[in-house]
């Protein structure tokens, strides 16, 4: 069944990259897009997405804090933090909040693995 995904990135190019990979992986999924933390929180409350992909490096609030807020608001939600900043410290912090780290440039394979695991988890919870 189609799920709803929230894509948060201040860069339109980066959002396009996620959309492109989604077109190949799950073309029927509903997409919500946000260019900053404020829009993202509105989309979370109003759109009620199942999965979120959040950029780490954004003006006015980093993606880790936002991902943590998502996880606090919807504990079961699968959240990925996306960044080219693959420092061990950031990988550790991502893991600590129960999110998945995906390196930029985002590949279809990496996004696919994350979404597959998310779908698996959601199917188990629902059945």
């Amino acid at each position: 069944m189609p799920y709803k995904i929230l894509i948060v990135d201040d860069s339109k190019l980066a959002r396009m990259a996620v959309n492109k990979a989604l077109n190949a992986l799950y073309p029927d999924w509903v997409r919500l897009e946000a260019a900053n933390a404020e829009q993202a929180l509105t989309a979370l409350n109003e759109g009620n997405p199942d999965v979120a992909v959040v950029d780490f490096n954004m003006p006015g609030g980093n993606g880790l804090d936002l991902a943590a807020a998502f996880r606090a608001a919807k504990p079961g939600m699968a959240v990925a933090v996306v960044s080219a900043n693959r420092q061990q410290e950031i990988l550790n912090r991502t893991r600590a909040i129960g999110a998945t780290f995906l390196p930029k440039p985002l590949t279809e394979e990496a996004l696919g693995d994350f979404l597959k695991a998310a779908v698996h988890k959601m199917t188990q919870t629902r059945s």
Partner: protein
Amino acid sequence: MNPPPATVLDQLELDALTELVNLGIGQAANSLAEMVRDEVTLSVPKVALVSREEAIRTLGEREAKNLVAVHQVFEGDITGRALLIFPEARSLELVRAVIGGSLSIEEIIELEQEALAETGNIILNGCLATMANQL
């Protein structure tokens, strides 16, 4: 006139710095190759410690007149700024290579600034994070 700053580091230290830069640039090239879906060839890196004046002079002598730079500040145990500089004439070409053939020229021009910033962000971040992971 400042003394030549190259004397600050001995040979081993310079070698270590070169290797660190090599790793960072390697990751940056890797990221760029993934984005443009093509091989990126790298020359052997050469590290030089130069004064601001010399850096400006070198860029002015070697490079095209109009340059585009993506600028990123980093803070932590080491604080500084990284610049990714390339000829302006090539920037649209780079954007086109990253976006692929699916957009019209108008759409590409509209996206140029933002696409350059994000491409620069990925390249510089990949480079800096790889270096930071070694420290």
